[in-house]
């Protein structure tokens, strides 16, 4: 019965990992979608390029799901384990923080870089490669945070 708190904390860690980056991605994608739709009204041929730029900040949401899965499977909650101590539960929460925080903010900021990229390709459609790179630079930190979370989660012995 004591260990119920540990299990709850694991769920909390999972929720953090999947919710915050998801919010960040959704915000960024929503704004970019609006901008892209406006550009398409002027020049429908740019659809493919704009879609890629819009999709870029979407990865954080996916990393969030990845983090959720790692937390749930490492803790054994997915296969029905409820025997998790409070300390272990807290460790999962701590391990989830990098992904949750950096995922949320990096998605939002990557959105800004993507938006700049969209404006770039309306003027210079041939420079979509550069536009993508500028946006992808931001994602590096989401990836580093994801790795920190994954490696942290995997190091918790349940």
């Amino acid at each position: 019965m004591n260990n119920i708190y540990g299990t709850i904390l694991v769920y909390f860690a999972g929720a953090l990992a999947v919710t915050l980056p998801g919010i960040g991605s959704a915000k960024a994608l929503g704004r970019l979608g609006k901008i892209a739709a406006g550009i398409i009204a002027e020049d429908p041929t740019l659809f493919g390029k704009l879609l890629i730029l819009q999709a870029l900040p979407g990865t954080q949401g996916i990393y969030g799901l990845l983090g959720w899965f790692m937390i749930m499977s490492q803790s054994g909650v997915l296969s029905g384990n409820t025997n998790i101590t409070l300390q272990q539960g807290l460790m999962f929460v701590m391990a989830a923080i990098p992904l949750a925080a950096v995922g949320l903010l990096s998605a939002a900021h990557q959105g800004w870089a993507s938006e700049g990229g969209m404006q770039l390709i309306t003027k210079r459609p041939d420079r979509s490669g550069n536009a993508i790179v500028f946006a992808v630079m931001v994602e590096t930190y989401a990836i580093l945070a994801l790795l920190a979370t994954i490696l942290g989660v995997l190091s918790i012995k349940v």
Partner: protein
Amino acid sequence: MSKMTILGMNEDRDDVLDALMRMGAVEIREEGDEETNRRPSGAAYVDNADVRSRLKRMIDDLVLRFPETQALSKRKIRISESDFVFTTEEEKELCSMVDRFEALLSDREAHLSSIRTLEQQRDQLALWTDVPVDLSIRKTKTTSLIYGIFRDTTSLSAFENDLERDFPLTALYLLDDPKKIPCRVAIVVMDEELPRVRARLAASDYQDIPNLPFTGTAKETLVTMEERIREEENAITLVDQEIAEINEYVVRLMTYHDALAVRQERSEARDKFHQSIYTFHLYVWVPTKEAEAIGQALISQFDVAYYHEKAAKGEEAPVKLQNNRFVRLFEIVLEMYGSPSSNETDPVPSMAPFYFILFGMMLSDVGYGAMLVAGTAWLLFKKKIEGESRKLVALLYVSGISSIVWGAVFGGFFGDLLTTVTQGRVNFPALWFNPMDSPIQLLLFSMLFGVIHLFVGMAVNIRNAYLSGDLMSGLADTVPWYLIIPGLILLLGSGSISTDPNTVATLNEVAKWMVIAGAAFALVFAGHGIRNPIKRLFKGLSSLYGVTSWLGDILSYSRILALVLATSVIAMVVNMLGMLFGTSVLGYIAFTLIAILGHTLNLALSTLSAFVHTSRLQYVEMFGKFFVGGGSFFKPLRRNTEYVAITEGRDGQKMPPHQT
């Protein structure tokens, strides 16, 4: 690249230009001062642009209307050289066709709008269909007839009372039960009372019958309206037939559009000719190998003289990449980044194998790789798509092959599809190891792989330095890191190479001296050419500070692990979701549906991720080690067509060999 000068007589000028455009192998060089930003102008230009844009609108419209035209527009239509020539009469005819088409469209719009009006009127009339009175008669010699609707019972009874009191010469007929609302009425009124009755009606909750073109009773009017709608529809059919007749000429119209575009480009090129009274001369860039053949081809047709020489060392010339068939597939990655300088090494050959491998690692799944290969192969070989997108699809095609290979290495087949479906009885074997089980191992290998990638980049840097005649600076930039990085890795990892303490001690000793030697090399040579010893030492020290950027660069390769895990974990989640419905027949049907949907989505997202992150590792990490840039890609003067491709030379002329 070679510089070529062509000298000829003015009367041959346009033909020479035509011939050069057909060959598509020279780029006009603007001699002397910077590229002048001339904007085309003049009546001819405006006419050309106007007709072209109208033609384009017309063709776009036809493409939307006729599926067969749409099929035609998917690929460039092959036409012969003689098809690309237009007589003045034909041009006039085509232009009048454009006029006719535009007139037809506006006719069609007018017919449509009158149909819309008639249909609205028909709906308004619906309320009056049971009234057997000729609604078109509104006047006799001394009376007027008013039809309308009362929308309020009190209003109606008040009006009835007023009639009795104030308007003895006016009669009101109720067409409906006055208790029900709305109530239709007919009013017969003597002309002298009409204005006052009107005023009284305006004060009531009353509405006149809609003002429609009545031709009799409401029913009769309806019949007339239906007839008119049919007439309008017939007119539209006629217009559509005529549009279909015009559509028969769509290929000719497309060709004409392209011919006009080429004509415009030619006249812009003509502005760059240098002219005297009788002769012209023209400066162009040509690929060195083709220069002689092009000159000979010109001489055989025209009275021209030519001269060519290789671009001087250090001179910035247009860049044309030349690679074997495999490497050529990866040129688009460089094209997306920007042109290298003409004086540096082509980065594509050193980049291509890494792109192939890195992409495969990031999307390492046999199933996804196979789907990617199948999809792109269909686009490449069955649909035969063309242009820029073909290059991208071809890149994904080879990269998909790499995905299959790496999927086998890491044991991924739609994630853990086999394991899930067979309830753990069958596992897809991994040739090397499964990243889900040993992520740290993959992390280390990713970074090791990154080091190799970066070291190759540095080797290109040495070659570039050698090409520019400053080998020493290339070595000073790279040799310290060739020593320091492996030294540091060895220091960190010596313990895992051997368990024997003596061996470890020796390895550490070797590593230590490698690092020291590298640092010393940097201190001594980084500031080569600087005389002041203190400044030189500072330059050396500041170059050693670059170790932080190395740390960042190597860590950046950890994204390989992240993407490998992302691909396979999402695939596992899809499989898990699919199996929620159990192992019954229905369960497997649900599984199939979920799997198709989920895996397709994951394939799209993971391919995008693999594509952008592989590109990033090339652009930022590898190119950062050597790329100079600042050049421009070779853009030969050619017939840039949108709809048609010209396949054979005029009069069976032989074209000099060139690659497109």
